């Protein structure tokens, strides 16, 4: 995983609450065996007309969205399905962080495992960002602070998640280092209570 310490970007604002992972990437795009190539699938049903033309007015299709790496969205972002493809699609679409007032649990976990930052800020800072699409923001992972203009809003990050983000450590490497403890647990727990056939 690539270390993430500081993200500077203008924002794209999608002022919708409860953006579920079926919107971020509809299920028909999950028939893949790869993590790559999901950029076109990002918000597909909001973003593209049936014939594949960009849907006029959708925020990601506006010229000012070009190159933006921070998405500002409504509360409870990423609810619904556990599909990690939602994070991969956001990343393929050029995003590195989402700012919201609340994230669904599984999405938050999936994001952090991919070096994608869920930035949960208070209502007032969020409202300011929603009012001003295109705002230049800086997300300081180390400090857990989102800043824009003279404003600073802190966001929570578990110490371990922060460590993983800034060092690029992936959780699997950490779990593999627990081999002795896992083996000890298994010795105590005994065999599986069934014989699969």
């Amino acid at each position: 995983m690539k270390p993430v310490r500081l993200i500077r970007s203008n924002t794209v604002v999608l002022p919708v609450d409860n953006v579920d992972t079926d919107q971020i990437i509809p299920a028909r795009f999950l028939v893949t065996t790869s993590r790559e190539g999901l950029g076109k699938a990002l918000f597909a049903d909001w973003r593209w007309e049936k014939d594949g033309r960009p849907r006029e007015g959708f925020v990601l299709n506006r010229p000012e969205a070009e190159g933006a790496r921070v998405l500002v969205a409504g509360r409870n972002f990423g609810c619904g399905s556990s599909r990690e493809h939602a994070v991969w699609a956001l990343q393929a679409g050029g995003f590195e962080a989402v700012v919201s007032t609340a994230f669904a649990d599984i999405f938050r976990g999936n994001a952090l495992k991919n070096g994608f930052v869920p930035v949960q800020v208070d209502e007032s800072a969020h409202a300011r960002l929603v009012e001003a699409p295109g705002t230049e923001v800086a997300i300081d992972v180390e400090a857990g602070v989102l800043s824009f203009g003279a404003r600073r809003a802190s966001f929570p990050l578990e110490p371990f998640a922060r460590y993983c983000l800034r060092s690029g450590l992936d959780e699997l490497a950490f779990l593999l280092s627990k081999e002795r403890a896992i083996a000890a647990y298994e010795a105590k727990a005994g065999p599986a209570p069934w014989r699969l056939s």
Partner: protein
Amino acid sequence: MEDGRRTLLDKIWDAHLVSAETEETPAVLYVDLHLVHEVTSPQAFSDLRARGLRVRRPDRTVATMDHAIPTRTGSDGRRAPAEGAAAEQVSALERNCRDYGVTLYPVGDERQGIVHVIGPELGLTHPGSTIVCGDSHTSTHGAFGALAFGIGTSEVGHVLATQCLLQRRPRTFAVEIDGTLADGVTAKDVILALIARMGTGGATGHALEYRGAAVRSLSMEGRMTVCNMSIEAGARAGLVAPDETTFSWLAGRPFAPAGPAWDEALARWRTLPTDDGAVFDRRESLDASSLEPMITWGTSPGMGMPVRGVVPAPDGDASREKALRYMGLEPGRPLLGRKVDVVFIGSCTNSRLSDLREAARVLRGRRVATGVRALVVPGSEKVKKQAEAEGLDRVFREAGAEWREAGCSMCLAMNDDRLEPGQYAVSTSNRNFEGRQGPGGRTFLASPLTAAASAVRGAVADPREVLSSRGAPSLAGDEGSAIGPVIPRDSDGTSPEGSAIPAERGQTKLLGTTGRTR
């Protein structure tokens, strides 16, 4: 906790700690059972390959195919094969399971089915165990008093390689459901009412424990339906303490303990229920006696109301305005009598034998209304066989419904079972998100009874009304004669003059719930 009195969640959590959480690091939690399917696993197996890792515990890993596979029967009378990218996923799963020694129940195997149907059915879902799957509806297994939750694909890789996950303990949340359900009101209505009250993010960060007399009197299938949709309130897990209903349901299943091991397991399982006086972080209560059949009107499972209710006003809430626009609905109007195009009975929420029996209870001797497509999709091969042994397939076919092979099907429209843009469906599945059942499709979530009644009526219907119209099996093609008129779906969503839909009954309030999602 502090005084030694523990909740069901605490007990399972403590027993599965490889290492406890600290300020700096999450807990390392051991996983007893890992369920795997074709859609969220290929990238995880690729990770193992890239790192030269093995599957640590193939004996605790079970795979099947459910999400992307067709549920249609081909002209040769057999299930249509997966095609294109879905076929690649299916063969990737076959290859991965073969290479890594994982037990797979593929299409054609009598144990194949939706992961959350086959786990319990095979007796793999044990009280007190930890169960994960790359699927958010893994919460289903909590019905047995297991800690079961959905994970992403990276975590699927973690569990394959280490049988462990890094986790913070969820907060505890007691949901007390007392009272008795009236006839025609089911577990699905309980959970839809609860989500309508709590909102789709209302239980984020928590594990729900469903308690109380109404939960005790639910069947295992009903408990699974309730736990299944815990995720729709934002909770990763839902649990019901195991009891005699649980034990007698599990006894004798292929992978349930047997002989002396059964007695030992039983003694252990009986210690699982939450200790009297244990403290929960949050509490909510619901009176089951006051519930009516529920239906959703919007594009999130929290946008629900009694089936006789009226679509609520958005009151300036942008999400509700957006939902109403997408659904083509007007506030202040009933859904009852509104024409539907498709009825879907299936999914990990409602595709078990008891669900199919409920649907058949309505459809026996009646006909699916002209112009309505009804699909009945059993949750597993076993459910299919049992249903056929009882003649339920004949009931469905004679009513004019399609009887399918086991799979997720139109719940998420990954295969070719999809709504057309603009179509309305009453579905027994779990999500009414925009486009969930096909781009532009519009979903009303409801119980199998309500779905079947709506199929007969050709419009959103109250199952109590349809069931009480017994003796009118000649309803075929004459929907409405005994059960009121059908409101045509016209551009402005209004009903014709003289509609007999009793609006005053439509205003039934549900426990002060406004149907708001926030």
